[in-house]
């Protein structure tokens, strides 16, 4: 027990003392914030540029051959309609840079649904702005016969829907039900990408730096593996705690912003649902899935003679974890599909598939329990293989351990 504690402490501190561990942890939220920030300020800056350009649009001519454009709308835009026979002349002015642009609505506009724009430069923002102006004049002109400005706006922009859902006669929280189990999917990927890899690195580095034989003299292989596994779980908890604190802070900020914060999909932070059964299965799939992958990674590192080869072999497991995303539509909408059923129980895909299905609630209690049981079986198997591979392959420094050697007495 004392040695197990020593191994756990050593492995845990080795990981969390690395500056790269904290750099990556801090970099993720910083990067996300930076992306949102850049996107926000970028859009703001673009808007400002468009507004500036809009002021310069006075030097744009409009010709309507279709008869669909309202002169009042054109006038409201600060522009005037030019006679139809001036197309060539105005086009030449644009080419020579004497005019900023020309919009021509042809006589077959209703049939072909195409109109022409001529610009004096190939500035991307200007192309975009004049294009929007042309479309806007057309849309508003077409909707004008509807009458009031409100009805025109409604026809142009549509309306937002408020969805109320019921289950067994009771109103449900709709999309808000997906938030908590959905977070487990995100946590699984964070854990998978960062922590599971530590098992691979931890074992393969010991082989590569040749400290393995010295360590095995003083610790049982089983204790060493279990110690490493528990250390990685502690590392994972550290990461989850770190992100949970950040998420908590973000949640409090979001709550304090109240109605001024508009979240997508009708998410209402005050209506987030904690369903015990869903959370139980989410934790189960997360923990068992994590341990299963950690076991497979350890076995891979023990079998492979070097970190490089171990990394190559491990790509199979990464593939297993990411493949479900290529089938996400089927997983979320067609739970009875035989392929969905297969990947629900197939060990390498089962953690992600079950977490996703549990999120949208298209997996029944019995199927979830059965799938968790199968996953647990594979987890035990993966840890057994890991200990066995480690006992037999830990001192194979120059060649890979043969798979047949795993099952020999």
């Amino acid at each position, binding site marked *: 027990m004392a040695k197990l504690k*020593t191994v756990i402490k050593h492995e845990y501190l080795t990981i969390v003392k690395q500056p790269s561990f904290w750099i990556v942890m801090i970099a993720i939220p910083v990067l996300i914030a930076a992306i949102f920030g850049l996107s926000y300020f970028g859009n703001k800056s673009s808007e400002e540029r468009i507004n500036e350009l809009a002021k310069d649009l006075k030097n744009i001519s409009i010709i309507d051959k279709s008869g669909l454009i309202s002169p009042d709308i054109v006038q409201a835009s600060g522009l005037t309609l030019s006679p139809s026979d001036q197309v060539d002349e105005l086009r030449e002015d644009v080419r020579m840079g004497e005019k900023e642009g020309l919009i021509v609505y042809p006589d077959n506009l209703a049939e072909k649904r195409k109109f022409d724009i001529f610009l004096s430069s190939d500035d991307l923002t200007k192309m975009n702005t004049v294009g929007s102006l042309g479309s806007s004049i057309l849309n508003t002109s077409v909707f004008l016969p509807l009458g009031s400005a409100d009805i025109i706006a409604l026809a142009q922009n549509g309306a937002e829907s408020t969805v109320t859902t019921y289950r067994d006669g009771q109103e449900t929280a709709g999309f808000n039900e997906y938030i908590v189990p959905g977070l487990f999917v995100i946590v699984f990927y964070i854990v998978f990408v960062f922590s599971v890899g530590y098992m691979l690195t931890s074992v393969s580095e010991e082989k590569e730096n040749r400290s393995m034989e*010295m360590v095995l003299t*003083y*610790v049982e292989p089983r204790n060493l593996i279990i110690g490493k596994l528990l250390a990685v779980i502690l590392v994972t908890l550290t990461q989850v705690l770190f992100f949970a604190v950040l998420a908590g802070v973000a949640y409090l900020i979001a709550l304090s912003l109240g109605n001024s914060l508009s979240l997508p999909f009708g998410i209402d932070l005050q209506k987030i649902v904690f369903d015990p059964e869903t959370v139980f299965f989410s934790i189960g799939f997360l923990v068992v899935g994590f341990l299963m992958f950690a076991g497979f990674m350890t076995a891979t590192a023990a079998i492979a003679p070097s970190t490089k080869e171990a990394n190559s072999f491990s790509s199979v497991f990464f593939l297993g974890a990411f493949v479900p995303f290529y089938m996400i539509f089927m997983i979320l909408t067609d739970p009875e599909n035989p392929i969905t059923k297969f990947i629900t129980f197939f060990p390498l895909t089962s953690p992600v598939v079950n977490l996703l299905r549990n999120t949208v609630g298209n997996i029944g209690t019995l199927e979830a329990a059965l799938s968790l049981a199968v996953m647990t079986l594979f987890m035990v198997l993966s840890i057994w293989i890991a200990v066995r591979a480690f006992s037999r392959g830990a001192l194979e420094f120059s060649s890979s351990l043969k798979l047949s050697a795993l099952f020999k007495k």
Partner: protein
Amino acid sequence: MTKPIVQVKDFKLTIGSKKIVDNLSFDIHPGEVFAFLGANGSGKTSTIRSLLGIYQPTSGILHINGRKYSPDDARSVGYLPEERGLYTRSKVLDVMIYFGELKGLSAQEARDFSLAYLERVGLADKAATKVKKLSGGQQQKVQLGVAIIGDPDLLILDEPTKGLDPVNRKLLLDIVDELQSKGAAVIYITHLMEEVERLADRILILKDGKARAYGTVAAVKKEFKSKSIEDIFVSIYNEKSSEVAHGKA
């Protein structure tokens, strides 16, 4: 005669279809330097790994202090394997304390021992340095420190002076002498016969997993009618696979 620290009797090891060690018997007593010799692939490392429970013997007895070794007895053994290395991303003192704790010392005992050892071998200022920043020779001194931490009863050194300069080689041999004088038994594996002549009380020369010479240095020399261990070693490896094992257990 003192009770042997190491007792190997009728030890056989077969891996797959390959016979690695065949019917090997020897024992080692406290305060003795035992030179365990043989060419590459003769079965030395496999014997040591079997003695330390890393490999499972096919048959035979391999005892340390009267019983089969288990990591619970780690404090009594120090092992410097041929394939050796340290956690390169960790600090020197942290690595030594880790191994000390694995051998059953308290963190404080391990720290005190490590600091005293680093002082002695001139690496006191490197205690907080990462292992990867040390030179090869400095790393080797730390590896020896890891092996001798806790003053083991049995020290197994596999080519301990490989790559060391003469100054550090002398330092290492002095440390071995000192441990021996404290009563530790030393299994010394080397290809440098002058070290054998200087240090060893008894020798065993292994060829193809079998003992070809075994006894005190003087007795083996007398038996082979030779003045040097090196000549005996060469003659054994030059002889046509005769199955005659010399020496007495």
